[in-house]
């Protein structure tokens, strides 16, 4: 205990939030492998409050109001209980459980929240809230996993509906506490220099993460509405630390992405990408996982070789698709979509990626146009590409790579349908002269807008 108490006093005297948060990190470190056990062993349930009060606040140098002292002692007492559960669990004790750790940690989180509402914990201690909130979520997920494995071994397959409700019971419970933290940050009335408002984006991201996990993405909208309603009292987003901004922008981007609002999604994901720490490889990869499909949909551009080169996972996901799109290889595109389907669906990127098929088709038809060459040159005039293309040429192009034999019937209606679809989407400019079996394309480098021909 002496170590944790000393760390607490030290952090408090220096007003260091991160150092204070370290005190409440329920993990033994390599530097101090016994930090949890020595804290737990220093007292017992009977003398807990007394021992905490004297070791935390007796002595010189620390000026803390009586109410705040009591509140910290309560937080530490709950922490002590939780650490006991963690140690039991690590020792493989027969009565230990992830659920018990969660319940104890939840009490601690509530004690901490109470410290902010009733005892005036200062805003510089916010990193404690981040740490306690983060582990509340972690322990809740562990407890849910534990419950799931127990119920499947004890009862076999449960009723699906009941199982679904129960599946995230602990995390949903935890989400309510984190939501309380959200309110504590958002509605703090203190002057901005010493306001918990500086914690709002960090805690919001933690809640986003939690809602994503329990499949309640819809609930994120409530948080955003609440933030928007207070926006005039919040410091501008740019003035927050970059870790807060990047994480928040990432989640906002993904929320828009899931709403198929790709333009808006791209804006936020691009901000997250630009500001992201270069060494945060995993996070950069996640941002790109959604930014790449956005780019495909909004600007019809593909990730460059350089971009994919540093991310093996993304290379695997997007390289085959990109190559097929660029080549106009529909057969290959369909194969790549089928090969990646499971992962694409899991990441919820299947839908926008599928839109790449139109781009692949545009590129194939564009190649038909280029293969058509030029009209008979007129004297003194620059060469003009042949702009009347028989529909049957597009039909033939669609058969390349399909192993169609001479006897395979072509459905001209279907080809015309694909053509009119591209024209409708503005990827191709012209019209179909049906009775003559031609497509008449725009002249003056406007047949395939934006592609130079």
């Amino acid at each position, binding site marked *: 205990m002496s170590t944790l108490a000393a760390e607490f006093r030290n952090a408090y005297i220096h007003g260091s939030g991160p150092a204070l948060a370290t005190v409440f990190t329920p993990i033994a470190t390599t530097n101090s492998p016994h930090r949890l056990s020595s804290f737990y062993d220093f007292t017992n349930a009977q003398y807990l409050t007394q021992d905490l009060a004297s070791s935390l606040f007796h002595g010189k140098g620390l000026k803390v109001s009586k109410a705040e002292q009591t509140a910290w002692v309560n937080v530490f007492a709950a922490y002590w209980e939780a650490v006991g559960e963690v140690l039991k669990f690590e020792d493989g004790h027969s009565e230990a459980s992830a659920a018990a750790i969660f319940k104890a940690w939840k009490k601690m989180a509530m004690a901490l929240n109470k410290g902010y509402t009733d005892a005036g914990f200062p805003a510089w201690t916010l990193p404690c809230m981040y740490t306690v909130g983060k582990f509340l979520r972690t322990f809740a997920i562990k407890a849910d996993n534990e419950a799931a494995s127990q119920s499947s071994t004890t009862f076999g397959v449960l009723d699906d509906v009941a199982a679904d409700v129960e599946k995230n019971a602990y995390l949903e419970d935890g989400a309510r506490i984190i939501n309380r933290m959200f309110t504590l940050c958002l509605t703090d009335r203190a002057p901005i220099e010493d306001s918990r408002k500086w914690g709002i984006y960090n805690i919001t991201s933690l809640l986003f993460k939690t809602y994503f996990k329990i499949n309640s993405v819809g609930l994120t909208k409530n948080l955003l509405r609440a933030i928007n309603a207070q926006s005039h009292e919040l410091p501008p987003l740019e003035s927050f*630390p970059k*870790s807060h901004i990047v994480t928040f922008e990432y989640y906002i981007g993904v929320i828009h992405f899931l709403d198929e609002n790709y333009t808006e999604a791209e804006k936020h994901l691009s901000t997250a990408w630009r500001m992201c720490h270069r060494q945060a490889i995993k996070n950069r990869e996640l941002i790109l996982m959604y930014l790449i499909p956005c780019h495909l949909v909004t600007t019809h551009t593909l990730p460059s070789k350089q971009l994919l080169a540093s991310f093996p*996972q993304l290379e695997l996901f997007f390289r085959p698709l990109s190559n097929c799109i660029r080549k106009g290889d529909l057969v290959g595109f369909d194969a790549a979509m089928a090969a990646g389907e499971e992962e694409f669906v899991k990441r919820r990127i299947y839908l926008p990626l599928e839109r790449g098929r139109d781009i692949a088709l545009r590129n194939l038809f564009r*190649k038909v146009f280029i293969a058509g060459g030029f009209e008979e040159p007129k004297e003194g005039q620059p060469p003009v590409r042949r702009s009347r293309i028989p529909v049957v040429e597009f039909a033939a192009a669609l058969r390349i790579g399909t192993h169609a034999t*001479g006897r395979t019937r072509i459905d001209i209606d279907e080809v015309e349908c694909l053509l009119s679809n591209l024209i409708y989407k503005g990827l191709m400019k012209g019209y179909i002269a049906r009775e003559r079996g031609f497509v008449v394309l725009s002249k003056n480098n406007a047949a395939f807008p934006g*592609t130079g021909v």
Partner: protein
Amino acid sequence: MSNSTPQGKANASEQPQQQQKPQVLEEDDEFEDFPVEDWDQEEAEQSATNEGNDHLWEESWDDDDAAEDFSKQLKEELKKVEASA
């Protein structure tokens, strides 16, 4: 959690074929906490030394891509189509 090492990087350098299935990802594959709270723009993705997004995105079509091969393939298919007509 941050102590997880992503699987699936081992095979990445092998030619990614279309048929190859993407590797299965970590179960808990979510945005990680940054080890530091704030950093200079210099250390960010887009800094003065690492300008812009220009090199990140490419046009989705490719004119150099064996146009002659394509013409040949197209002619062959056309012959087949005409033969079947």
